[in-house]
């Protein structure tokens, strides 16, 4: 057993971190609000770095890495607050030509249960998509986004994740069966957890830096225990979540080491917890500044809210977990 990153994994992590710092500095991320969160050139840079082709086999033009590595990549994308349908374009690269290269931007939505009252259906980034994938128990379906009738939600919580309220999804063509759909649910939950982990870490760093700098009562606020303890708790939540998320990646790569569903469920739950609680704590530590649009803290918390609602919320995962014990 060796539950630490290998040198190659550390190098990958480093490379993605640098890519994000170069291509997605915060000013750029914020400017993407005007583009519905997706800008084609930047998207292609992600693709060139292998974000979407990472797990495709090398003969198919992929990088041939595993979920453990994908987790590290998504963690960095989360840390940099990179917007866009990252998860779906990554998953979709296996079934839609042009997704891996970044030529096409692929979005997606989960459809739960058939018949009965349909729950609220919100599609992210609809206007920016080339293809929309629909995931349900029967498999994966590919749709032309233009065929989807929906109304733009005027004030989405996360300004970088535009939403369309959709009444009904057209049938589309089936591109994968139920096994793929089931696998995607696990992978989607794991990589969403990885983004959440990155968000949880980013706001911890941000809050710590601010607490060292901001002076009140003639000293840095980080010297006050009431603040210090908030920050220590943020660190703990992020570290515990990290262990769970890395473990989920390792379970997907090697299902023989344990119960994959349980590992993934726990990871999504712990990372969701960490990102939501740390996001709030970051705003608290920033005081009045934290409540401004200017300071980035709210963007991380809002993204965490978006990701908590996909591939199983913390509430839903807690119930799945209960069924497993």
């Amino acid at each position, binding site marked *: 057993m060796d*539950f*630490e990153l290998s040198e190659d994994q550390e190098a990958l992590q480093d490379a993605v971190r640098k890519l994000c710092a170069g291509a997605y500095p915060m000013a750029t991320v914020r400017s993407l609000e005007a583009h519905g969160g997706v800008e084609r050139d930047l998207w292609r840079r992600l693709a060139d770095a292998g974000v979407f082709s990472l797990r495709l086999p090398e003969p198919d033009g992929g990088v041939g890495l595993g979920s453990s590595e994908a987790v590290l990549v998504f963690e960095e994308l989360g840390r940099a607050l990179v917007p866009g349908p990252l998860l779906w374009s990554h998953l979709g690269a296996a079934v839609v030509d042009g997704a891996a290269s970044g030529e096409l931007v692929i979005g997606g939505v989960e459809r739960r249960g058939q018949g009965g009252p349909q729950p609220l259906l919100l599609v992210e980034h609809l206007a920016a998509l080339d293809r929309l994938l629909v995931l349900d128990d029967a498999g994966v379906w590919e749709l032309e986004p233009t065929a989807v009738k929906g109304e733009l939600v005027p004030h989405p919580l996360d300004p970088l994740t535009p939403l369309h309220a959709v009444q009904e999804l057209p049938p589309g063509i089936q591109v994968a069966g139920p096994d793929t759909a089931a696998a995607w649910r696990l992978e989607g939950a794991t990589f969403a957890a990885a983004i959440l982990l990155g968000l949880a870490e980013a706001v911890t760093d941000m809050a710590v830096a601010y607490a060292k700098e901001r002076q009140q009562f003639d000293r840095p606020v980080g010297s006050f225990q009431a603040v210090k*303890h908030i920050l220590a708790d943020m660190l703990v939540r992020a570290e515990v979540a990290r262990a769970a998320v890395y473990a989920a990646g390792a379970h997907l790569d090697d299902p023989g080491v344990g119960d994959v569903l349980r590992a993934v469920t726990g990871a999504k739950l*712990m990372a969701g917890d960490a990102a939501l609680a740390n996001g709030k704590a970051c705003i608290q530590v920033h005081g009045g500044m934290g409540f401004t649009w200017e300071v980035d803290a709210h963007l991380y918390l809002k993204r965490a809210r978006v990701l908590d609602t996909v591939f199983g919320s913390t509430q839903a995962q*807690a119930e799945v977990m*209960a069924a497993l014990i």
Partner: protein
Amino acid sequence: MNLRYSESEERFRGELRGWLDKVLPTVGPPPASDDWPGRRAYDTAWQRMLYEAGYAGINWPKELGGRGASPTEHLVFLEETERAHAPYVGVNFVGLLHAGPTLIAEASPEQRSRYLPPILRGDEVWCQGFSEPGAGSDLAALRTRAVRDGDHYVVSGQKIWTSHAEVADFCELLVRTDPHAPKHRGISWLVLPMDSPGVEVRPLRTIYGTAEFSEVFLDEVRVPVANRVGVENDGWRVAMVTFSFERGTAFVSELLQSMELLESLVGIARSTRDGAQPWDDLGVRRELGHLAADLDALWSLTKRNVTQASRTGVPGVGGSVFKLHYSEVRHRLGDLALRILDRAGLSFDDLGGARSGEQVKGWVHALSISIAAGTSQIQRNILGERVLGLPRER
């Protein structure tokens, strides 16, 4: 990154399992918790069995009588002994888990050969005399003084909350050897034989109703200078070494026990009482699921900590991260247990046909986890200052 145990680690697991299957049926049930001589006899007998089978000091160096196992094998050992419900370290806790490792790191060769083998054989039991009535969290404020008299220190003062002091042969003792130095600089780490004249142990009754720890009074106790570990007045640094072990792998067995406690609680929640099952309550079900995810994550964190320790040789700050979250999870687990048990949670005995007693004890135990070995507040200070680099308060 690889969560699979290697072939040789699995072979070790197999051997250990075979041995446990053979010997455990010969080990009787543990004595009552207030029967101290019984507990000592029981725990040290188990240690003796481990020793004879070559499993004592599993992660201690071979040349010091240990097995020299890797950190991962150590983890496998803890996993297997818990799974098989083997006796826990019990009264051997201090000797095996932190005094011993501190001696390995800091003591002279003579001290090592004197003290380490009897710990491994289960012949001698240790306790920890760090805390004092006026020095708990602020341990460096300790006042028990040791005055040099020839080749002895004359030690006077009082220690408190000393676990297992009643049955200990030796005590890892922190004393003040220089009253004029700044408080962290005048401390030394001594080995105190508990049968020295002038040592008086008075058991303290805990909130369990039984005595788990004691007050230790020291009245002009003569301790040979040769019993000092490390340099005079350098005891604070030695104590820091002790702490890193205390907060290191010491919690693995605890965590595995907590997983069983949760499993047992799920069983209780699923059983019907007064025509209803607590399990039918969505809130209860979710909190149980949530706790399972927390414990799983802590198990993964343990594996990361173990891997890190095997690369660096010492337990890192992962111990503080672990302890802080673990304490909170145990509080939540205990609170949920009492909520589920309702009036069956009003006794340490099993009531109403459920295994409720262990849940009630678990709830009480949680109260100590966030205090002993550094309170949660102190752990937060450590993480804030030593890991996040935040300025000190004063």
